[in-house]
Structures are given as C-alpha cells and as structure tokens.
C-alpha cells in the first residue's frame, strides 16, 4: 500500500481519527498495530523476517546495556553487526555474488529464489545504527520489546526511509500526541507537495525515461541526453517526493522524522550534494562507517581510501549490481578529484577574472555539479555497464539535435501537452526550492494569509488529481460500445 493510493489515504484518515481519539498511554500500541498492518499489506511473508530482526537486535542491545564487561559488550555489538550485515547480505546480495562467481570461474551456478523483504535496507541500517548507539552509550536500550518494535516498523518510514535514529524517534514515539491543527496542516502541505513531485513529475518523466532506456540502441544522443536529464528529475522527485509524503504523514500525527533532502540540485559541489541528498543515509554512513574507519584524521591517502569505501558501500546499499557500485565509485572519485583540483580551479577562475565568492561562480559550480550528478545517474538507471557505456557513447558521438525540434520527442509516451505539464511542474518545484527547502516552504505556506494558503492547497490537490499519473488512464477506444 503506497502513500499515493486512494486506499492508503482512506485508511490513513481512519488511523488518524482513532489515533487522536485515543489520547492515552496506549496510543503508541495503535501505531504499532497500524505499522504492522501497513507492512503486511505489501506481503504477509515479510513479517517473520521483520520480527526476527526486531527480536535479535532488541535482545543484543538489552544485553549490551546490562553487561559491564567491555569485551563482552564489544563481542555483542560485533555479533549484532555481523547478524545485520549477513541478514542484509543473504537476502540482497547472494544472487549477485553467485552470478559473479559464475562469470569469473565460468561455471554454472544456480540462482536462488530468495524473497527480498521490502524496506530491508532501511530497517536493517536503522537497527544496526541503534545497536552502535547503545554500544557507544548514546542512547539507552529500549526495555519494552513492543516499543522497540514500533521504532523499527514505524509505518511512515519502514518502506523507503528515512533511516531513523533512536535518539530522535524513540522519545517521540513514547509521547502522547494530541491533535495540533498547525502540525496537521503543515503535515498535509508537506504530504501534498511530496505527492505532486511523485505523481505529476516523477511518474510522468518515468514514462519517457523507461521507453528510451528500453530501446536506447535506436535513439540518438539528444534524446538520450534529454532522457538522462529527465531521469535526474525523476529520481529526485520520486525519492524526495516519497520522503516528503512520509514526513507529512508523520507530521500530521505530531511526530517529526529526519528531513531526507535539502535541495540537492542546488549544491555547488559533490561534497555538498551528499550533505543534501538522502541525508539519513549519508549521515548514517558518516557516523557509523566513515568516522570509525578514521575519517579524515589519518592522512590524505587514508581519507581517500575511506571515502572510496564509503561510496562503494553506498552504491551497493542501493542495489546488488555493478552499475550501483560504479555509481558509488564515480561519486567517490568526484570528491577526490574535487579536492585535488580545487587549487587549479581557483587559478582558472582567477585567470578568467571571476570572483570566487560571486554568484556567477556559484552558479557555474551548481550547473557543473548538476551535470556531474546527472552523468553518474546514467549508471544508476542503466541495467548493466554496457548499457550505460552505450548511452554515454551515443550522447557524445551520435548527437542528433534535430530530434529535439522535429516532434520526435513526443513519440516516447508523452504528448506535447504532457511535456508542457512536466516542464511546468518542474518549474513550480524549482521556484519553490529556489526560495527554501520544501519543509520550510510548507511551514511558510501554513503561516501565510488564508487566501494564499488555500490557493496553494487547492493548486496542489487539483494538480495531483488531474495531472497525476495514476490509475488505468482513459482511452476513448475502450469506451466505445461495440457489442450489440
């Protein structure tokens, strides 16, 4: 059950009414019940795995807290980490490993028909982070297994994040929440903007991108470049849109979760991009991997190695495919090259008499960063490396600019009207983000004059309703009576 479905919206309305009517110390139990129902609505067979991870990590954390011997504590946290990594590894990476073994040794290896529980990467990292926090003494272990189960399964974030932190979330989940009109309104606006990004932009762009990527061999460089640019918008509006919907749903219930995006395409460097993109994952990797590896404290070479490790793991976390690994590697390299070339770039700016602090220079950096990120997304979207390389080659060598002007662009599932709406919607999001991030914008909308507030709300509701990509789509031909 995804957030943007009518089914979810109607169910959530009921959940919310009961939630606020309860207003007692059992309110969180209602949330736990709803979270499990929400999770099993995807597939009931995922539930045992979720329960297993919950029980094991809860038990280990509790033992760690009770244990006074440092070595045993260390052993416990290591065993917890091994469990989490193996759990994720078995489900997500076994077939990837087997196919590589098969390719390297040229032997036939059977692929396993493994179930991949939805949200596994998110809740595994969340529980792993929790174990490390408890080990470090940053948070206290949760004694009540059901409360802990709610922390792991909290429905707004279990499927697609953000990856929650115990110190932020657990306390809020324990608190009794009464209905707060302003919070509800803020949550609604955040949710609507997220839904707009997802249904009007991401899902519309996906129609074009999917068509072009499916037959990339036959299309010219210009169409492929446009497709890669649209994918750059698609992936952002899809993921950020979903995150804002999660944030909105949670806000409506009075619970604030991590803000996962901070206008990433306005970043002036790749380093900055990673401070703004999928913040809950990048901060997780920084806190639980990069810093424990030594971070930037052990010299330049070690820093670069650490960076590459973090980005390779980030790539692998996103999917079990070499394309993701390369995507992570490219971002790691971007940062290393960025560091090494910093002085050269400053010299070039100096030679061109461009002030380093000027807006013009910042805009050049933003555009450069955008295209670097865009380039890396090609690997992220491609099904295999040869496909990504093929697309890049065509973009560089088979430039056919006329196909952007002779109407060819309207042959990939999006009509001229659709393209116009897509462009308009992207401009709306661009202008909003130009002012501030979506979360702050939502607050501003809520506190603005009632006419502006209502106009904005109506705009988003009607735009989603009419221009959103959902349902079967109307085809006049299917409605023509032809029986008797």
């Amino acid at each position, binding site marked *: 059950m995804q957030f943007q479905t009518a089914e979810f919206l109607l169910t959530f309305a009921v959940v919310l009414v009961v939630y606020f009517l309860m207003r007692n110390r059992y309110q969180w139990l209602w949330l736990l019940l709803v979270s499990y129902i929400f999770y099993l609505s995807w597939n009931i067979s995922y539930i045992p795995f979720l329960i297993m991870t919950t029980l094991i990590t809860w038990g280990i954390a509790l033992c760690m807290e009770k244990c006074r011997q440092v070595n045993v504590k260390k052993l416990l946290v290591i065993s917890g980490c091994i469990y989490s990594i193996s759990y994720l590894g078995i489900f997500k990476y076994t077939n990837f490993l087997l196919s590589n073994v098969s390719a390297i040794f040229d032997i036939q290896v059977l692929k396993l028909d493994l179930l991949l529980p939805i949200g596994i990467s998110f809740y595994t990292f969340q529980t792993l982070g929790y174990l490390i926090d408890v080990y470090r003494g940053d948070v206290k272990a949760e004694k009540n297994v059901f409360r802990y189960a709610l922390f792991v399964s909290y429905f707004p974030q279990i499927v697609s994040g953000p990856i929650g932190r115990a110190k932020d979330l657990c306390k809020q989940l324990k608190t009794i929440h009464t209905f707060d009109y302003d919070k509800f309104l803020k949550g609604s606006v955040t949710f609507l903007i997220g839904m707009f990004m997802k249904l009007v932009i991401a899902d519309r762009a996906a129609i074009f991108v999917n068509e072009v990527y499916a037959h990339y061999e036959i299309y010219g460089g210009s169409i492929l470049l446009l497709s890669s640019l649209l994918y750059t918008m698609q992936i952002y509006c899809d993921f950020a849109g979903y995150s804002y919907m999660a944030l909105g749903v949670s806000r409506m219930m009075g619970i604030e979760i991590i803000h996962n995006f901070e206008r990433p395409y306005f970043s002036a460097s790749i380093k900055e991009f990673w401070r703004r993109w999928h913040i809950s994952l990048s901060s997780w990797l920084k806190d639980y991997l990069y810093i424990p590896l030594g971070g930037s404290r052990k010299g330049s070479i070690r820093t670069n190695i650490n960076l590459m490790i973090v980005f390779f793991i980030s790539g692998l976390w996103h999917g079990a495919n070499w394309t993701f690994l390369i995507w992570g590697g490219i971002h790691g390299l971007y940062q290393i090259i960025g560091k090494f070339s910093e002085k050269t770039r400053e010299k070039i700016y100096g030679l061109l008499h461009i002030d380093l602090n000027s807006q013009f220079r910042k805009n050049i950096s933003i555009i450069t960063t955008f295209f670097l990120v865009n380039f890396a997304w090609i690997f992220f979207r491609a099904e295999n490396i040869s496909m990504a390389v093929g697309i890049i080659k065509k973009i560089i060598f088979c430039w056919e600019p006329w196909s952007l002007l002779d109407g060819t662009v309207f042959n990939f599932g999006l009509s001229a009207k659709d393209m116009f709406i897509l462009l308009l919607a992207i401009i709306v999001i661009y202008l909003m983000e130009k002012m501030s991030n979506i979360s702050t914008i939502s607050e501003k909308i809520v506190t603005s004059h009632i006419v502006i507030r209502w106009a904005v709300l109506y705009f988003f509701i009607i735009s989603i309703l009419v221009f959103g990509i*959902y*349902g079967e789509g109307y085809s006049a031909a299917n409605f*023509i009576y032809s*029986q008797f």
Partner: protein
Amino acid sequence: MKNKMKVNKLVRVVIFIGILLIMVQAITLLLKPKWYGQELGHEAVTSMVDGFYNETKNSIDVLFLGSSNVFRDINPTVIYNESGITSYVLGSASQRMWISKYYLKEALKYQTPKVVVLDLYTIFTGDLNGESENRKALDYHKFSFEKLSAIKDSIYYDGETNENYISYLFPVLRYHSRWQELSSEDFRYFLTDKHHYLKGYDIVNSIEQQENYDFFSTETHEPEVSQWVLSCLDEMVDICMQNNIEIKFVKFPNVHWTQGMSKVCQDLANSYNVEFIEYNENLNTIGLDFSTDFMDFVHLNYSGAEKLSKFVANQMVEQWNMKPTILSQSDQTRWQEDMIEYERMKNSYHLVGITDVEEYANIILNNDGYDVYIVTKGSFVMENNKLLELLGLDNYQIVHSGETYLGVIKNGQCIVSEIKEGTNEYYSSENRAVLQSQSYEAGDCASIKIDGKEYAKNYGGYNIVTYDNQLSKVVDSIFFNDGMETIGR
C-alpha cells in the same frame, strides 16, 4: 477564547472542504466523457440520464427498460404523438438485469409510471458486463444508496478491485487523464439545457442489409437463466407489485433471438403471472421492412423505430387500455416541441441519404435553419453546376484556372458568393465556422472548420457542408464536381 478559536478553525476546515468538493465536482463533470449518441458506439447515456432527471416529476406513464434493443427501437416522442401517452427509455449498452433493477429503483423516486416494459434480451447474455458499459450506465446518475449498491454489483461482476469502487464514487480518478482530450463540448456541458427531446431514445439512420439471415430462428434450445438474473427479476416484479405498476416482459426485434429463448421468456412470464410480448413474430404486422428499417438486424434505425413505436403506442391504447396522460400546459407544449425537433432531426438524417441534386436543393431551400458552406479546391473549370444553380447562387458559373469560389447560404438565402484568385476565405462568428478555398497554386485545399473541427471532404471541385442551426450540428458533408450527375459523399 480557546474554544472560539477551535470553532473558527473547524468552520474554516468545513468551508475549505466544501469549496474543494465543489471544485472536484466541477472538474469531474468537465472530465467525464460525454455521450450524446447519434453516432455508433456513442450511445446517448449522458442525454438520457440528465434528461430523465430533468423531466417534470410524475409526468411519465410508461418506463422502458433494457439494452440497446430498447433505446434504439423505442421512440417515446412518436409514442406520445400517436397516443398522447408519455414514456421514457432508461436503457444503456448491453444493460444487464441488475442495472435495469437499479434504474427502476432510481426512476421510482421521480416518476410514478403505470406500466414498466422490460426487454429480456440480456437475461441470456451472462451476468458480466464490460467496464465501459458499467461506467456509462452509472456515471451520470445522482449519488444515492441505490447507486452504491449498483456500483458494488458492477464491481462484483467484473471482478474489479476496491480501488475501482472508489473511482466509481469519484469518477475523476478514472477520467483524470482525459484533460488532454477536452473540447469545447466538455466546457459547454455546464451551459447546455439538460432536456432530452428524444426521451432516452438514441436515433440512428444507417441501414445495413444482410443477405443471409434467419430471423426468429426455429432453434428450440432453451438457454439457462442465471440465479442472479432471476433474483433481479424477482425484485423488479416485486417492486412493481408494491407500487401498483404493471410490468410487461417484451422482446423487441433482434436477429439473434430464437424460439427457444422466447419459450424461456414465456415460461418466466407465466411463473410471475405477467404478460410476455414477443415482437419478433409480428414483424409484418408492425410493418418492418428488412431493406429500409434495420440498422443491423439487432437494432432498428429511425424509420424502423418509428414503425415499432407507433405499433406499441396503438397497443398501449387498444390492448393495454391506457389513456392519454394529463399533462400541464407547459409539459404538453414541451412534448410537442420535442416532436417538432425530432421531425427536424429526421429531415436532417433524410438529407444524408439523398444523392439527387434537385431533391437535396429542395430540402435546403424549403426548410429554415440550414446554413450551407461551399468551398472549392484546386484549379478547374466548371461551367454548369446544377446544384449551385438550384441553390440560387449566381456568379459561380465560371471558375477559371487559378481561381477559387466560396459561397454561403443562410436560411435559403445566398449571403456570400464570390470568385477570387488564389485563396478565398470567410469566417462566421455565429457558428464559429472558418471557410477556405485554395487554388492549386495557392495551397490546393478546401477547408470548412466548425469549432476547430474539419468537415470538408477536400476533394477537387466543390465541397459543401450543411449545418443545422436548430440542432447546432453539421448534418452533411458532400462534394460535387465536373462530370458528376449526383452528389458524392
């Protein structure tokens, strides 16, 4: 103070939701496909449902229920003209019994008919119906608990999901992607008069002649009727009994109908103690002619429907002992106006079948309300254009190479008739018509666009479009050029 703020906020929320619902309703009406009939595959459900709600309460005496075998075969306007009895057809595409049952329940909220006539064709066609038929049957009806129940039935019998249930309640979810296809017709829906002068009847004028047909075949196999259909029939008979309404089972002419099916219907009627009227065995008495009155042998065209409706009207008076309905003066006038409008429609339909130049010109000139637009394409020399001469156009006689001709007739009077070199253009704001004649050198095109839609055939020579101002639609598009004795289409 705090309570006052709470009340204020609550009031704001209610107003916000109220405005939102109005907006959603308006958008839904805009985006919903409009079905006005008069074209195959586009049966007039929108006009039928809107028109029904628009009828004066308790003014309809006979209700016809059934599939296209009813709404293409029975013309209430003709019945009224013949007998003075008012009737309305509530029929939709391949209408199953559960829809007829719903229509009956809904209709009885607004009307108190004395007789309900139910065509039984679909008792043998299975319980399932396609999504398009279900949507068309339900989309334009007002919200009610009966409608909720009908939606439930439609989903159950299509094996659809709950999500579709929501989209039946909020059709905008189903039709939202139609925003790309919106036309002026969709916007004009808000302003159009919802009165339906054909009272649920869907007029067609085509004739399809079949060589080998076996009408009312002697096939004696008696097909089964499902429990679901039987339960719907039970309920309908029950409702009619409770409301003191006489229900009659009928089968209107249909080539697929067999004597075996007829026997099943007769037995069913006997079991309910109601009358079953088999029209398939009375084709000669009705006066139906296979060469002129059938659209496709499953449905009648307007000529056949008129004959059948007259026959049924006489039955109502002579055999069913019905008396002419007592209507208010305004309702009487309305029914008479509807008859005139139907006659007009018939004339326009008749026009489409004419190939004789003289007959065509006579209809145009002797009936008010026709606009005739004439444009030419290419370079040609035509010295004797009988049609234009008959229509009273004067300076058409010689169109030389490189010249174009453009003419407009309004209510039988020529208002434009001129020859120009290259391109000849005319614009009528009244009908939003844009005319353009181009010689070979200037573009070689004959165009007559009305509301942005192209109607001219764009043949070399004269291209003529006839617009009916009373019906507000194009009724014919023809061409006529050198060497032609009759009109081309």
